[in-house]
């Protein structure tokens, strides 16, 4: 497709954690940081808004949130003003939709903002509400709404079929916390030792506390614009959205598509589609932000995304390939494990880190990064979403 290209121009996020703030407060904080990254962009020059959130309509009394967000942010959208609800992949979905809107010339400058306020006045709701985030009538009453159980099964299966070791899972957390240590906006800024990980409270064996991402309030915002607008708005190197994919092949766990739970064909499908769409291959990815909702998730994802062979995710991490200097530095801002996971905001946070990496201004900079990838899984591992970014437009 010749013609218009979509670029990511700037982004910012509020402080993530257990926040004394409402969703609409955090959205404003994130938008301020985002526009602070693009001096010269006025709110009224933004013609589209996509608001990614799953739980805002449930953990607050507000439905139809997009107009509320637009008004509080001083936006007057004329091309699109809508909410996107794809749970953990809402932010990335917003970015893919914004790309389509910009490339089709329907929009010129779109803000994608994600936010979740997970902590309600009574704490029980934080876990209980998760029952609504999966296939409610079938899997909900079976207990995997809060997903650690499901991912503990995945970890056991991966260990059984591929010989993955407990310490290899732990290493994912140690590495990602190390990356997150200098990210002041993330939920945690601390270093972990393998001892911390192995001796932590058991959540669902083999997963302990540090193998799980925390429950986090937070918001993040980015601006997606046409190449022409991006040039007007910023002197920094352009970062193009090369392509992406979103694959959804089942919803109820009984329809799991793999041979066993450590086999994720739906992610392979999304990856194949995304690489074809972006006209690149896995070995071209210089830096990746993958959905490390649990330590085991990252291990399976680096395999299915093609960064290493199937079954070799554990050794891949162990041999330092996800660190700076490795073949595919991964979750360089701390990932979900250290930054936390306010569902709709996560994909936006990942996009901000890739933007900074590709512009050479990341805190943990990957040398000469030219192609970056973000990945999210959503729900009870039922959908996979990938976005690919590059310094050069798609060939």
């Amino acid at each position, binding site marked *: 497709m010749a013609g218009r290209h979509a670029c990511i121009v700037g982004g910012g996020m509020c402080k993530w954690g257990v926040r004394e703030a409402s969703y609409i407060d955090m959205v404003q904080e994130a938008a301020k940081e985002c526009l602070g990254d693009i001096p010269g962009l006025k709110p009224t020059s933004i013609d589209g808004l996509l608001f990614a959130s799953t739980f805002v309509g*449930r953990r607050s009394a507000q439905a139809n949130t997009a107009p509320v967000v637009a008004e509080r942010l001083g936006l007057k959208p004329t091309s699109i003003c809508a909410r996107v609800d794809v749970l953990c992949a809402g932010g990335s979905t917003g970015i893919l939709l914004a790309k389509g809107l910009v490339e089709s010339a329907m929009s010129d400058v779109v803000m994608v903002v994600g936010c979740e306020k997970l902590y309600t006045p009574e704490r*029980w709701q934080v*876990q*209980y509400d*998760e*029952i*609504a985030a999966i296939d*409610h*009538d*079938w*899997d*909900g*009453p*079976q*207990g*995997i*709404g*809060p997903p*650690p*159980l*499901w991912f*503990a*099964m995945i970890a*056991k*299966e991966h260990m059984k079929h591929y010989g993955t070791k407990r310490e290899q899972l732990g290493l994912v957390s140690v590495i990602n916390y190390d990356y997150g240590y200098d990210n002041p906006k993330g939920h945690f800024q601390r270093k972990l030792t393998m001892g911390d990980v192995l001796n932590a*409270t*058991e*959540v*669902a*064996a083999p997963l302990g*506390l540090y193998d*799980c991402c925390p429950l986090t309030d937070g918001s993040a915002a980015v601006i997606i614009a046409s190449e022409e607008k991006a040039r007007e708005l910023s002197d920094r190197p352009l970062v193009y959205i090369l392509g992406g994919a979103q694959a959804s092949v089942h919803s*109820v*766990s*009984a*329809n*799991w598509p793999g041979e*066993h*739970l450590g086999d994720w064909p739906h992610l392979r499908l999304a990856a194949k589609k995304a690489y074809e769409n972006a006209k690149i291959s896995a070995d071209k990815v210089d830096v990746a932000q993958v959905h490390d909702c649990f330590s085991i998730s990252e291990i399976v994802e680096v395999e299915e995304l093609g960064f290493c062979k199937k079954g070799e995710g554990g050794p891949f991490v162990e041999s330092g390939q996800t660190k700076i200097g490795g073949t595919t530095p991964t979750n360089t801002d701390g990932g979900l494990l250290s930054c936390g996971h306010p569902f709709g905001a996560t994909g936006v946070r990942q996009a901000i880190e890739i933007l900074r990496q590709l512009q050479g201004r990341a805190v943990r900079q990957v040398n000469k990064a030219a192609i970056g990838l973000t990945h999210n899984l959503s729900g009870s591992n039922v959908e996979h979403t990938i976005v690919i970014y590059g310094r050069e437009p798609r060939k």
Partner: protein
Amino acid sequence: MAATGIPFLEGRYSPTLDMWPIEAKEFNRIYEFYENLREGKFTTTKCKKCGRVAYPPRVICPECYSDELEWIELPKKGKVAVAVEKWAGVPICYEPPLIDAWIDLGEDSPVRHVLSRMVNCPPETLKEGDEVQLVVFDVPAHPIELRKETKMAERVFFAFEPVKK
């Protein structure tokens, strides 16, 4: 459901916070699943046109979109493929540990695996290969407003339990 802080909703039912499905025939077209469950049968729908078995039950066949479906029984016994226990972050509707299993219903079953909560199962006992069976239990009823009066809709749901050796 008591609604603390919202006095006029005291005693009102709101599906938003309900963890169980609304099973009553006034509100869905697959209520036979729950009626069968009440008789101890684990069922789903099969397409009369193309033979496709779909779980969970449907009102159309996801293969050929025919709406001529019949109910068939699924195995009520299976073997544990993987079992896990959750100790932290268990939602208020369960007591920790919350035990779940990925259950293999066998090569001949049109639905190969189901994920289920395990009940009547002491912690740290369930292993790969253990035989388990369907168990049906009552779950809380909810009101349905009819023209003049309100009736209570009784409900059941299912889990699995270890087969006693």
